[in-house]
């Protein structure tokens, strides 16, 4: 078996050497500072008038690639569901870790409202500044996970996160379907463009990002809680 292992190691090293050569060959052809794609320039030129979002990355994520974002949310949902399935939740054995010290507990109490505000701010300004549903959702998940770190005995209500997640996902699809009733393509932004750079602009994009943020936040909070509970059971 030792011989087999050294053989395996040798083939792995050979594979890595080949991969390194391949990557080095790619490195030779990469031109830093000159993007090879031309679609970016077209989007940069057309997006402000077409979508009305000051943050052009948001117009790409939700307007030009809205359908892809929906599928990516589906991937995240599948991964979170599978992780929850793999981790399992047995209601019988609920052995909890001891409570954290006073510093962590006070910190969790203090940071919970602040994290909520920051997370929601980032979600609502996703079409104006860097940020959006994905980033804000992660901050929301952190807000709901921190009290659990401080007091492991208090469990996150999994039924609640599942409900929020399902409603947010349904809202995203519903907004997409509304465009169909207007005679547009699926997930076309509605409600006009608005004034560039104001909070109420870019049509349905802020609503879509709110749905994304709530979905990602609920999903990750449930996932983190499952991981924490898995650790506590041992």
């Amino acid at each position, binding site marked *: *078996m*030792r011989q087999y*292992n050294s053989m395996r190691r040798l083939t*792995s090293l050979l594979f*890595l050497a080949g*991969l*390194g050569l391949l*990557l*080095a060959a*790619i*490195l030779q052809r*990469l*031109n*830093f*500072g*000159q*993007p*090879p*794609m031309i*679609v*970016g*320039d077209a*989007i*940069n030129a057309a*997006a*402000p008038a077409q979508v009305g979002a*000051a*943050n*052009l*990355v948001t*117009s*790409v*994520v939700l307007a030009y*690639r809205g359908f*892809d*974002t929906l599928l*990516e949310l589906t*991937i*995240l949902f599948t*991964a*979170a569901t*599978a*992780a929850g399935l*793999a*981790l399992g939740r047995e209601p019988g054995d609920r052995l909890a870790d001891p409570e954290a010290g006073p510093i962590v507990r006070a910190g969790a109490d203090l940071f919970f409202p602040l994290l909520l505000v920051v997370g929601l701010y980032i979600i609502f300004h996703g079409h104006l500044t*860097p940020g*959006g549903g*994905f980033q804000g959702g*992660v901050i929301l998940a952190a807000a709901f996970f921190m009290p659990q770190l401080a007091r492991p005995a208090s469990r996150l209500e999994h039924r609640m996160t599942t409900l929020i997640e399902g409603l947010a996902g349904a809202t995203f699809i519903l907004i997409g379907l509304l465009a169909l009733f207007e005679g547009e393509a699926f997930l076309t932004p509605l409600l006009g463009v608005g004034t*560039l*750079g104001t909070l109420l602009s870019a049509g349905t994009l802020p609503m879509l990002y709110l749905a994304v943020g709530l979905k*990602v936040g609920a*999903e*990750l909070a449930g*996932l983190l809680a*499952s*991981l924490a509970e*898995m*650790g506590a059971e*041992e």
Partner: protein
Amino acid sequence: MDMGTLMFAGALGLMLIGTAALVLSGHLMRMVFGLALLESGASLLLVLTGYRSGASAPIILDGVVPASMVDPVPQALVLTAIVIALGVQALALGLVLRVHRAYGTFEMREIRRRMERDICDQAGLELPSSNEVPEPYPGSPKPQQGEY
């Protein structure tokens, strides 16, 4: 070597290190970390390809459209890729924890050995064994007849 090549080399190097951890390590936790490194390298490479010299971020501030903006498409791709990477890592961690709970170790070789033993137990078969069978794991005691 100019700055750009250095940064591209960093991204590709991260991918190489991550792959090395995946194929060379037999420790499940290190393989998860290797996967995380690989994903970070790929994301970094994507963002770097969209960079244009001297351009600003693709954000319009106060109605002033910058003269030159970087490509927003790779940034949008990476935005979602990071979140998906997080979900995939959580799934991998969940599976690894599950395996650790069942077999009590993160070492791939050891897990494979115990799995084979369990399968043979269930099937009522004897483990394939001969006098030449080498020790299953460096430093472990010589296996008894029938156990391995």
